[in-house]
């Protein structure tokens, strides 16, 4: 599997650290209830098919990326800088 880093271009999967589902971009308020934090920290949609997850380009530019890919075929559709995705969420 190769990931298309927006800064470095297409790179080997080994250069990246996988963080998990991109829920981390939508952090609950500090005073949100226990269930909101449980959902954020532990519970996952865990989709069989298309997913968006967070990867860190550890062996490259050091960017956090949101990668759109398929968990059944390992096809990678696109990758965006996490800060751009986060910016659009506001």
């Amino acid at each position, binding site marked *: 599997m190769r990931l298309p880093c927006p800064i470095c271009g297409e790179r080997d999967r080994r250069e990246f650290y*996988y963080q*998990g589902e991109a829920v981390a971009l939508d952090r609950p308020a500090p005073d949100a209830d226990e*269930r909101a934090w*449980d*959902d954020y920290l532990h519970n*996952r*949609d865990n989709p069989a098919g298309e997913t968006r997850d967070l990867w860190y380009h550890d062996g490259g530019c050091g960017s956090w990326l949101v990668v759109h890919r398929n968990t*059944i075929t390992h096809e990678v559709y696109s990758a965006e800088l996490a800060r751009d995705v986060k910016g659009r969420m506001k």
Partner: protein
Amino acid sequence: MRFSALRVLKEGLTGNKGWTPHWRDPQPKDEYDIVIIGGGGHGLSTAYYLAKNHGLRNIAVLEKGYLGGGNVGRNTTIVRANYFLQGNSEFYSHSLKLWENLEEDLNYNVMHSQRGLINLFHSDGQRDAFVRRGNSMVNQGDDAILLDREGVREHLPYLDFEQTRFPIYGGLYHPRGGTARHDAVAWGYARGADERGVDLIQNCEVTGIDIENGKVKGVQTTRGAIKAKKVGIVVAGRSGQVAAMAGMRLPIESHVLQAFVTEGLKPVIDHVVSFGMGHFYISQSDKGGLVFGGDLDFYSSYASRGNLPMKEHVMEAGMTLMPMIGKAKVLRSWGGIMDMTPDGSPIIDKTDIDGLYIDCGWCYGGFKAVPGSGFSFAHLMATDNHHAPAAKYRLDRFRTGYGLMDEEGTGSQHNLH
């Protein structure tokens, strides 16, 4: 049909014409007391113990493919009870005791071979950790023997003891650990359940779970609707999809774990050897193939196949530990879908929906748990009480933070196990 030496002899002399199918192929009925979703090792053993221990008969196991066609049919077959933490320790201890009596219990040759398992260590700090683990195992009533380097050499003379990166200091020897024939475990439980009246229904995919007023009423399947008083979800890597049919999100992320088999060789590896520093473990099957594996590919996947970086890593670790392995030719590799929890420990619990139960989160260690998991899940489903050895496998431990079982001590977070 009972197996016995006399029967094998008789069939051998009469052309093997008297063997019969091991289970029926029934049509699903309209209604059951209990429906188990998932005809893998854990689902089949759950059905078996529901019938055997609790006298329940009106049970169906629904399998979308064929019985034992998932992880129980493709794994590295290791059976052990060398866990450290309370909660895990008593569970795997109980499961190993069930293994030790499984062949008589099922009247089925599951080829359980207690050839001994050795976990290697490579530093003083690692030795201390294994001393502590060994003491915990002994306190649980299981067996653990600390071996120094020469002690390991007596068992495993073929290792590269003097390697510069991870010189071998010793090992923790678990003599009752070993392997079993994975398919036979599924088949033995299936036959035992079928004999007791359980309907094993294959090619029957669950497409919906019927819930009314917070109570489960049955399931929708590709072979029609089936009513049920109680439903158990036992679907390993697919837990997320099935739980979603009941409106639940689980603390589970499905990952791919690869394993490898070489061509058949003469006996060369007598034990199960675990090389934690290199994420590598190995045993030799009774057919002669070297069976080995490593760590997860470390990203969520349902592909049932892995990528090349982990293959390379596993091969490198094998070569580092036992250079002789370089002569063997790999025949095939595969990837299994692992239901990973944040703390690396499983879940056997009720859900918030009345009558709906779940057994999942076995991560990459589900095979050895097949007897214990079925025994404890059957107890929970039949009595609504948690079975003592599995009483700490609660679903709500992630929400409350109470009772997390992080065996590796890496933190209770997805992607750390």
